[in-house]
């Protein structure tokens, strides 16, 4: 039972990271109907930028652990948002009127480019996050000791997801995003600058993905230039699981996938952990392509 609850909290933490990345996929898909393959690499860039900013500015030394990490997270989110905007401008915007599959190839190319760019700048080896950033302690939850970082990751992700949800649902700009997702042409007729909405989506998604990268660095302590690919695929699985294009769906799908994976690693086999996620992806696409909460992905004939 102890192991079950430990795996459950671990699954919740990892799942909330998946959910944050999945939001980026789902928002871009919602507006552009494009799978942004480069999104996983924006996540990697977040992790690496987090490390660079952390070691060069020593924020936690000046501001204390919690405020320092919060400021760090905001800086990383801002920087990754800029990269996301640049990506849209250079790789996707020239292809707005092209066939869908051209944009998919462009996205793949951008992904390969960013991943290898990170490798050339930072090197191919694993990079290690400093170990003393957040206090290493476990919190007693109903007689169960859970590491503090696990709870922080979960809380921070939930706060960001709720903020995003409220932003999309309650503000004027959020309404514009929803309108553009439903019908771009009609949105344009209503005076919405769709290109600016897309740019905004390409900043919001990567900002969350970059924050997720920072969390992975803090949670696992080491990062690698290829990790965005695996996290990206899993987050994409999470987005499909919840129903792509659907923001609450991405959150539910992420958390669910995290738990499935943690349980699978604990009770089936750790060596097959990554394969379990892909099995989930294939099964969901075969059995219920709409995901748990919506969107149709099979070809209409």
């Amino acid at each position, binding site marked *: 039972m102890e192991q079950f609850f430990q795996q459950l909290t671990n699954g919740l933490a990892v799942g909330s990271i998946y959910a944050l990345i999945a939001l980026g996929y789902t928002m871009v898909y919602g507006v552009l109907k*494009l*799978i942004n393959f480069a999104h996983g690499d924006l996540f990697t860039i977040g992790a690496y930028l987090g490390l660079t900013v952390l070691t060069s500015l020593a924020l936690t030394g000046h501001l204390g652990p919690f405020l320092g990490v919060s400021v760090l997270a905001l800086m990383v989110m801002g920087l990754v948002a800029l990269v996301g905007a640049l990506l849209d401008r*250079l*790789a996707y915007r*020239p*292809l707005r009127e*092209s066939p*869908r*599959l*051209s*944009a*998919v*190839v*462009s996205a*793949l*190319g*951008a*992904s*390969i*480019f*960013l*991943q*290898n*760019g990170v*490798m*050339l700048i930072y090197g191919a080896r694993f990079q290690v996050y400093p170990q003393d950033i957040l206090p290493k302690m476990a919190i007693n939850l109903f007689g169960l000791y859970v590491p503090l970082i696990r709870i922080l990751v979960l809380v921070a992700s939930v706060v960001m997801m709720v903020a995003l949800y409220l932003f999309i649902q309650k503000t004027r700009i959020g309404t514009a995003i929803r309108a553009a997702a439903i019908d771009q042409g009609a949105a344009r007729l209503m005076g919405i600058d769709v290109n600016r909405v897309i740019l905004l989506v390409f900043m919001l998604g990567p900002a969350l993905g970059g924050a997720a990268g920072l969390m992975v660095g803090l949670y696992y302590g080491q990062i690698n230039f290829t990790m965005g*690919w695996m996290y990206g*695929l899993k987050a*994409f699985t999470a987005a*499909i699981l919840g129903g792509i294009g659907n923001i609450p769906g991405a959150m539910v799908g992420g958390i669910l996938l995290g738990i499935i994976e943690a349980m699978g690693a604990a009770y089936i*086999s750790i*060596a*097959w952990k*990554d*394969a379990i996620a*892909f*099995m989930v*992806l*294939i099964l969901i*696409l*075969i059995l219920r*392509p709409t995901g748990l909460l919506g969107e149709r*992905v*099979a*070809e209409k*004939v």
Partner: protein
Amino acid sequence: MAPRNIIYSVVAVILAVLPVFLNAYWVDVLNSIGIYAILALSLNLIVGHAGLFNLGHAAFYAIGAYTAAIMNTQFAIPVLWLLPLCAFTAGLFALLVARPIIHLRGDYLCIVTIGVGEIVRIALINNVFGITGGANGIFGIARPSVVGYVIRTPHQFFYLIWAFAAVTILLFHLLEYSRFGRALNYLREDEVAAEGNGINTAHYKLACFVVGAAWAGMVGNLYAAKMTIISPESFSFWESVLMFVIVILGGSGSIPGVLLGAFLAVGLPELFREFANARMLFFGAAMVAMMIFRTEGILPHQPRAYKLAKFGEGEGGQ
């Protein structure tokens, strides 16, 4: 003879005599180019002709290679005799995997094939059924022999691999202009119209997937015979990406384009070894630029031209 055919013949003759002037290292580079060229041609059938995005082609390649390795080391069957079996296992696997997913929309199919490729690689590392040798792979695969003549050196392999490439080019060229090839091109351009004209699109998509996979399985056999040792790393996602890049950059649907793509993507990094690390960076940027400025690739597919009958003086013609 058309000027194009003259160019192709000259290139073929140059390629055939090239090993005489090159040392073993450069012949081996040409062998790698040959292997990737055949793999990319088989992928071209799926990506270029039918327009199905497959980023898990390395899985079928791996299944062919492992079939050859296991049957050769366990039962001492000569490697080249296993070619049909490799094609069969890879094709059967493709059939089983693709059957339920073939109706998915382009980008989703792409994601699922990535997933399949990863599952196969993880299964190989985890020594599935206890026969794949885990992360170390399988070693001690016997050298192939052709009518009693054992093939050992890179120079000998050159002729084996490129003979296979020549057969592949010929067959795929014929396939391109067959009823089957036309049906694939039709469903790539407009699936609804193709279905409306009585083309069973699901059937054709599946058939082309299986043929492409079976061909990759046979290349796996050649690869196992050439290396005599295979391991899961040789069949990673990046192999699938490289094949995909060759097809897209060279010119999807075009056989000369794919061959040129193989020379550029595999040969150029050997010429500029100091930049070898940056090659994927360059390919990534090239893919984006290509989609923006020249979607159809370096040597695009030339649709077959049919000459019209002449109606009168100065009219008709091309």
